[in-house]
């Protein structure tokens, strides 16, 4: 059974991280507040998970100003996309094996 779970990435074990990656997989970029709303999490919680994903170079941050308001948006990196796809594949395999 080792093979089946080897594709599962520990980085994506948290639900919030899974959520972030899912949104960024299908959107070119997504801003902090919209992300917060779609995942229904608190600022602090989301920020810490985003930081963790950013540190592992799975997502990139883009800070800019819209008018005078700061706006932070996030995009998935190639590595992030690759690893997340692998993770999804592993989940699917796990289900199919049952």
């Amino acid at each position: 059974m080792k093979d089946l779970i080897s594709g599962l990435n520990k980085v994506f074990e948290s639900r919030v991280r899974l959520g972030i990656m899912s949104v960024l997989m299908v959107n070119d970029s997504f801003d902090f507040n919209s992300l917060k709303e779609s995942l229904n999490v608190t600022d602090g919680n989301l920020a810490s998970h985003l930081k963790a994903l950013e540190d592992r170079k799975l997502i990139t941050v883009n800070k800019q100003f819209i008018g005078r308001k700061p706006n932070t948006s996030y995009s998935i990196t190639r590595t992030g996309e690759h690893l997340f796809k692998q993770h999804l594949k592993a989940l699917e395999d796990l289900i199919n094996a049952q």
Partner: protein
Amino acid sequence: MEKNPTSAEELKTIRKIMEESTKFLSLSGFSGLFPGLIAIAGALIAHFLILDKGEMSYYEYFATLSGKETVIIKWQMITVALSVLLLSLLAAFYFSFRKAKGSGKSFWTPVSKRMFINLLIPLVTGGLFVIILIIQNTIHLVVPGLLVFYGLALVNAGKFTYNEVFYLGILEILTGLVCAMFPDLWLVFWIIGFGILHIGYGLFMYRKYEA
């Protein structure tokens, strides 16, 4: 191996998040139903009150009128059409807003903005085109123009909401093209395109997703 409900659940959640973050799903069936009813009401007002009933053929009727009367009727028709448009938009917004609120989602999201931009580009183009048709006195192409451009707008916006919107768009385009072939029957095609198709769509969506 033991059953692992979490991975199945996880995949389900992932799919849901992916869909919700790329599709505007707060579009309510009522947002189709009420504009449909309003469009039919508008058509009936135009037919019975402005065009003196019975006379289906707008153009023949026009020929019997003097220039001044024609202008008055033209403006009355435009007023009715704009009222239908305004009330329909209000109803469409209201019911979708209510659905979003009811399910605890926000109405303005990156997805809904994307959907509106994609809806508005063909729609505003169509609106301007139809205004030009009216100025040029090519009145027989006004209703086909409205239907075709509205259909294109729906096809475009359909990528960001329920797939059914795409198919509604295709039907509107077809209705518009057939209408262009039979311009005398514009009122019938208006009722089919803006009335019956919307009502059918609204009922279908309500039963499928909300009932």
